[in-house]
């Protein structure tokens, strides 16, 4: 299998380990990723707060470049915010010719043209839909059956486009976690909002939302995420939250491909495990312990 790959800005900075572990996991599964040439920012959650046309034009640049590469491959996007921005343009131009014309008027400045043929897919969609669960199971070399993992989906890979999972009660990560041998933590917080960019502009509100998620994960050995913003909000502010609310223990936060990569026996440096901000000592000890 082959995919075009849109890493997005976060995966080059604060979420490097998501990029590294995604590439390492895909290589281990013999899946080929080709990075979109000279990709640019999708607009993140900022463009839509500033200008509707800009919020369409920025993702469209990347879809147009991908179309011009003429591979016929789906575009794989690991970041949920990038995924939604790119997908929204693909969905909009499919039904709205006027929007496509306005977008192309902007894109002409860069001598690009969008036809509207791109298929934009979230990493989790590809892992859950395109790849045979047996392919994961056959590749597992390290038994993680003594671990319990809380699957955290966040919002924008699920909503508003309900493409590959139930948008409120998602389950698509469960077979992937079970393939590693680990147990799935039963909880109802998997699709609740982490506060997204509120952490920068309305911190108290975001801390309240993250607190609810961390509280729900008590008893799990780690939370698995599929979005750099979710990952950052859940891991980077735990000391503040633990101090303020005084009713929970810190929780290890991993990107899903890091967890899968661990089970595959891939070396820690290929999975960027030294880059996570919250891997608790309990988790480190338990991970290397031999299952009873």
């Amino acid at each position, binding site marked *: 299998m082959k995919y075009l790959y849109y890493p997005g*800005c976060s995966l*080059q*900075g*604060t979420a*490097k380990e998501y990029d590294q572990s995604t590439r390492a996991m895909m290589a281990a599964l013999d899946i080929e990723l080709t990075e979109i040439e*000279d990709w*640019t*920012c999708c*607009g*993140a*959650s*900022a*463009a*839509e*707060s*500033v*200008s*509707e*046309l*800009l*919020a369409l*034009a*920025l993702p469209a*640049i990347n879809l147009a470049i991908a179309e011009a590469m003429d591979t016929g491959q789906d575009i794989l996007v690991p970041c949920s915010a990038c995924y939604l921005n790119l997908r929204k343009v693909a969905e909009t131009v499919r039904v709205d010719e006027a929007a496509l014309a*306005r977008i192309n*008027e*902007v*894109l002409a*400045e*860069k001598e690009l043209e969008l036809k509207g043929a791109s298929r934009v897919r979230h990493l989790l969609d590809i892992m859950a839909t395109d790849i045979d669960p047996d392919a994961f199971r056959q590749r597992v070399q390290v038994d993680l059956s003594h671990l319990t993992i809380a699957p955290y989906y966040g*919002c*924008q890979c699920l*909503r*508003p486009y*309900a493409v590959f999972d139930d*948008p*409120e009660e998602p389950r698509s990560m469960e077979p992937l976690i079970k393939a590693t041998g680990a147990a799935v933590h039963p909880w109802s917080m998997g699709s*609740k*909002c982490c*506060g*997204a*960019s*509120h952490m*920068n*502009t*309305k*911190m*108290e*509100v*975001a801390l*309240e*939302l993250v607190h609810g998620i961390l509280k729900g994960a008590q008893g799990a050995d780690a939370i698995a995420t599929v979005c750099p913003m979710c990952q950052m909000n859940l891991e*980077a*502010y735990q*000391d*503040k939250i633990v101090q303020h609310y005084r009713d929970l223990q810190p929780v290890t936060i991993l990107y899903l491909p890091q967890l899968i990569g661990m089970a595959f026996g891939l070396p820690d440096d290929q999975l960027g495990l*030294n*880059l996570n*901000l919250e891997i608790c000592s309990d988790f480190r000890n338990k991970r290397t312990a031999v299952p009873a």
Partner: protein
Amino acid sequence: MTTVATQNRPGTESAPGPDALKAIQDKIKSCIQCGTCTASCPNEFAMDLTPRHLWRMVLMGETEDIFASQTFTLCSACYTCSLRCPRGLPLTEAMHDLKQLAAKHKLPRYKASTAFYGHFMDTVRRHGRIRETEFISRYFMTMTPSNPLMPLKYTGMGLKLMRKGKLHIENPFAAPGKQSLEAIFQKVESMEERA
């Protein structure tokens, strides 16, 4: 120094008039005031107006009350209300529309959000991709005159990221790079002025 993206646009620094709401009213005109949006919103606990109340204000054209409220800036785009709305209204999109109006009119009440998104877009405009240190330094420069201690809330996280080598030292006044999106931004602005 380059200006913030939103500051390049024509702005009035006064509350939008009732006409400004026309496009949003069209999007939500079949609202039945059932309150599913309010019940679904994870941020409702922090809002001064509930989402249902806000949509009523929009339909009534109560611009003064809408732009005295923080409700729309508290939307974190989780899309739960859009998903559950029994009339299928694009409520998250309508929240974005209100954020865009507040940014366009440079309303001081929304300075934190407007400056945050404005500096983000300005960095993307000049370099094509986000440069986190550059954008955050510029955001802090806007915010500290009125709130000098504000960056302290982020020092813990900043140090963590630095220890992991995830923050790069960047000159906040660096010249635009080869991936500059200046032409795209200018075109968007001229098309929006024409509209």
